[in-house]
């Protein structure tokens, strides 16, 4: 019932619009540079895996993927770990300054990364974390922790208070209640929050690039450097781009049933 005339046509056109540029990238990643530059072909006429082979055999390339995944994982774990108790606190209790604190957290989610780039550079250099995954993971906390608190608070509020009270009457201590009862109840919420933390940490470039130089360089930064230095190695660039899409696509596939619910809370 909630549909409009011509909906199949509209949705199909829109999905094609979304997929076409991605297809073009995949298409180019299987071409040789000679084919890319000389002819306009809709599919690779001489398909080659050379571009991918170069990425997987050159350490300066594939280490970028490992670096990116490392700080994304660290960031997701930290964000969820600190956000869980806070979400419970915001959901269940009122305390001095709770509303102001919540607003302050939210305002950090909205702060432009460009504002923080330079001070972060100074800060993490001063404490010797510069060029480690920890620097990027901690820096990304500034927008992921508030986000995780925001999402989880909604899920915790969906758990009836009676469950807490019954558990405490049964003699559960607070930490035991938290781990044994609350966490399993909001497991899907934790999944949704982890998904969004992964997503925003994975796609961010400015801070990740500013806070690393050699050892912890993320894949996206390695890509930008290649564009300017190596000039026109389009095939390699396209292959590297395709490989950055894959982790995101896998994550979406696993949480596809929760995406709508996560968005339904309206807390992104």
């Amino acid at each position, binding site marked *: 019932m909630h549909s409009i005339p011509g909906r199949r046509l509209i949705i199909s056109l829109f999905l094609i619009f979304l997929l076409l540029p991605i297809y073009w990238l995949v298409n180019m990643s299987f071409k040789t540079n000679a084919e890319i530059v000389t002819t306009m072909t809709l599919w690779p006429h001489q398909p080659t895996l050379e571009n991918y082979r170069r990425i997987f055999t050159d350490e300066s390339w594939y280490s970028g993927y490992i670096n990116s995944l490392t700080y994304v994982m660290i960031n997701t774990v930290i964000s969820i770990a600190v956000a869980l108790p806070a979400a419970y606190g915001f959901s269940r209790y009122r305390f001095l300054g709770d509303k102001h604190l919540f607003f302050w957290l939210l305002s950090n989610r909205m702060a432009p990364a460009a504002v923080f780039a330079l001070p972060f550079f100074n800060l993490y250099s001063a404490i010797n974390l510069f060029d480690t995954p920890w620097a990027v993971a*901690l820096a990304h906390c500034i927008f992921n922790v508030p986000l995780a608190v925001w999402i989880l608070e909604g899920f915790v509020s969906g758990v009836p208070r009676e469950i807490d009270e019954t558990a405490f009457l049964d003699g559960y201590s607070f930490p035991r209640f938290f781990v044994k009862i609350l966490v399993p109840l909001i497991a899907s919420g934790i999944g949704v929050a982890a998904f969004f933390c992964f997503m925003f940490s994975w796609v961010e470039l400015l801070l990740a690039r500013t806070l690393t130089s050699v050892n912890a360089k993320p894949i996206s930064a390695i890509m930008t450097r290649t564009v300017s230095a190596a000039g026109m190695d389009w095939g390699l660039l396209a292959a590297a781009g395709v490989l950055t*899409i894959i982790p995101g696509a896998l994550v979406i596939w696993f949480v596809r049933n929760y995406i709508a619910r996560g968005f339904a809370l309206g807390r992104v």
Partner: protein
Amino acid sequence: MDKTINQKAWFLVLPVFAVVAFSAILPLMTVVNYSMQDTFGNNQFFWNGVGWFKELLDPSTDLGGRFLASLGRNLLFSAIILAIEVPLGIVVALSMPREGWTVAVCLVILALPLLIPWNVVGTIWQIFGRPDIGLLGYTLNTLGIDYNYVSNEFDAWATVIVMDVWHWTSLVALLCYAGLKSIPDAYYQAAQIDGASRWAVFKAIQLPKMNRVLLIAVLLRFMDSFMIYTEPFVVTGGGPGNSTTFVSIELVKIALGQFDLGKAAALSLVYNLIILIVCWVFYTVMTNAGVERPAKKGGA
């Protein structure tokens, strides 16, 4: 609802406070400190008071001119993408299939652009739009349209806008879809019995039910487009000339390009203040939207 007052809850919130304060308050203090000073290299700093702020708001100076021009471009950009993405997102959400395996496929494809690293989004469109090797650029030029986003201002703007629509319309669509899913079937049955037209169903049932998510969508899109940096930077590098230099790009140029710490810090503070004000409006509207206001008594 009836939350108990318990000051010990601060202990639960303390880890979050510590982590975010470390990443937010310390750097902010640095920024405030820099914004009052001038630097001539060698880490020598000179007190400059509110000089930078005065310059920033005065369009006749170099700094002020650049700031206000990029602010204007950024606001225009935000307005255009909102005007396209919000209606398009609603239409796409309304066109989603109702059930079956196609729903999952549509959801996954819709979410895909959201999970591509921002600079790769830039790279995708950079390649896609090139007149020599990109499908879009090649097709347009073959059709006789002289399209080149590197040298033509209008083309650069069009590319950046289409790229943003490609990248973020899904977010609006997914939010609206979630809002539509929460409408009980009974509403539609009642509308059918009343013989309501499709337009009436949309106006009286669907739009009011999407109100809240639409509000979130508009504000999120405004905020994020106001801070946009990576995608236009990769595609156009802020050019041709300065035509696609938005506030963040200008800021990074001053801060990390010229290392003009004082100017950059002052710009950061003003920029952050604008974001903070919009964010406050967002927060107030959001928290009030959940509360049912008592009906006003007529006559006074």
